[in-house]
């Protein structure tokens, strides 16, 4: 039984992945300490300083309502973490359960995996769009929708990995020694899936940022007043010629965070059980 990845060997000799990890820590700190770190109220309008250049006191400039971009960007880190971790949680719990149960109980699997097949007949972004039309724009709904989209791929991946594990000797041994289904699933199979699912989680976290930004851009994601990087881009895009910095800062934040998460996922992937390497759908 393998222990979840330890950190040190993952980042040894990988300068870029280490920098990426550091950046993610910065984002995490910004998210937690947003009220303390943000110099202004991210929602406060100030008509006197509309579209002002980056400088003092507005380091990232202001948007067309005169809101401080830096403060909105810092609060945006919160949304990035919420969206990322929320989608990961839903995708892994729902997808993981469906995948594991389907591989373990063959007949149930026939049914559940057919449902997954049907959902996967919808391209990811389209599925998200359709679900968002049925739901109201809110943070929770965005998280749920993105989570469901990635739950389908996760279910298929976990299904494949559990099938491989089921063939292993130690699972047979556990069954022979009279272990119950729950015990075999959660004490013998699940611990072996933790590391590959962690890798999968990092890629979902990254993709979720891009999906959320796309939904924001289309006006179907977070409510417009919520300070997220995607909303900042979406709202200010018509001012791109007058105030290009309004798009550069949030854009760079998204790219940096997604890139960092992908780098970390890539580094993690090189350290998992080689049998599962090809199962993970990453960059």
């Amino acid at each position, binding site marked *: 039984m393998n222990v979840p990845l330890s950190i040190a060997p993952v980042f040894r000799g990988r300068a*870029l992945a280490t920098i990426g990890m550091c950046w993610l820590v910065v984002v995490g700190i910004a998210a937690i300490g947003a009220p303390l770190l943000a110099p202004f109220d991210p929602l406060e309008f100030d008509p006197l300083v509309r579209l002002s250049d980056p400088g003092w006191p507005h380091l990232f400039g202001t948007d067309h309502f005169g809101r401080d971009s830096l403060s909105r960007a810092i609060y945006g880190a919160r949304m990035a973490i919420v969206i990322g971790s929320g989608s990961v949680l839903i995708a892994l719990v729902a997808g993981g359960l469906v995948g594991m149960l389907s591989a373990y109980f063959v007949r149930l699997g026939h049914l559940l995996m*057919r*449902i997954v*097949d*049907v959902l996967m*007949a*919808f*391209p*990811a*972004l*389209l599925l998200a*769009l*359709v679900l968002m*039309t*049925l739901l109201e724009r809110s943070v929770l709904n965005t998280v749920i929708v993105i989570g469901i989209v990635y739950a389908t791929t996760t279910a298929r991946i976990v299904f494949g990995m559990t099938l491989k594990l089921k063939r292993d000797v130690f699972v047979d041994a556990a069954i022979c020694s009279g272990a119950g289904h729950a015990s075999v699933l959660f004490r013998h199979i699940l611990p072996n899936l933790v590391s590959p699912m962690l890798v999968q989680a990092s890629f979902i976290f*990254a993709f979720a940022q*891009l999906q959320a*930004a*796309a939904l924001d*851009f*289309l*006006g*179907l994601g977070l409510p417009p007043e919520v300070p997220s990087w*995607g909303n900042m*881009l979406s709202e200010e*895009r018509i001012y*791109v*010629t007058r105030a*290009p910095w309004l*798009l550069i800062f949030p*854009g760079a934040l*998204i*790219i940096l965070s*997604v*890139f960092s998460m*992908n*780098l970390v996922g*890539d580094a993690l992937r090189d350290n998992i059980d080689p049998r599962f390497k090809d199962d993970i759908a990453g*960059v």
Partner: protein
Amino acid sequence: MLIYALNRVLTLVPTLLAASFLVFMFIHLIPGDPASILLGDTATPEEVAQLSRELGLDEPLWTQYVLWLGNVLQGDLGTSVFFREPVLSVIADGAETSILLATMTMFWIVLFGVPIGIVSAMRHGSWVDQATSGGAMLFASVPTFWLGLYLILIFSVGLGWFPSSGFPSIADEGGASNLRYLVLPSLTLAAPNAALIIRLIRASMLDVSREDHVRTARAKGLHPVRVAIKHIFRNALIAVSAAFGFTFAALVSEAVVTETVFSLPGIGRLVVQSILRRDYPVIQGVILVIVVFYTAINLLVDLAYASLDPRVSLK
């Protein structure tokens, strides 16, 4: 081969039926009476009552589904609330743009993705490889609309090389030179997908290069480039071709964002606008068409896969 193909088609039927049922249910999941939803706000009570009868709204759900499916199979996807036109012809209007955009995007993906992926694998571990696979991952991390906006800013507003928005139909006016309208959108859409293809080609080629038959090829005295292309890339292509297919199939829906940025009259923008206009018959129709298209392309991918790998055709 033919039996294999038929088999694959048959296994898709239940999936497609279930998917179509979900699409059918879409209208029923929206709060409100389906007939009024389908007719929009301006409909008279008489019209609503008539459509209710046509759709069999008094009947059980599965009867309604069978009625609806029957209409769909005859090409009747309903009438657009906004355009007052059959949904199928509204979708057909966007098809030219979407298909040309997807094709041009695939062209860029192959043009950039394949050679860069091969070089990256051949030089693996070198700075060339690190730069290309790092760069590819960076491109895969860029939101497409952001990239599109900056391409417009640089190449349309700044340099004036390409138009920034719209796409006049080639059939109607202007001819093939209208393709210049699609250059920036297709590059935008190609960037993250080419990045994924580069990384996939690299990884698959590295896997193949560790196989025994590659050593046999080298033992013949073949040039390394020949070994890389004829023996490594050709075998890696089996896995990569599947990715090409999936990418193409997904492009039509991924184009939603790009078509919105560049105001292209394609199916993707039609989805978004219909959602904002609450034109539910069109939304339902587009989803159905995209799902069928997506499934069909994936089927073709499977068949192409079988024809590329001599080991599969025996099964």
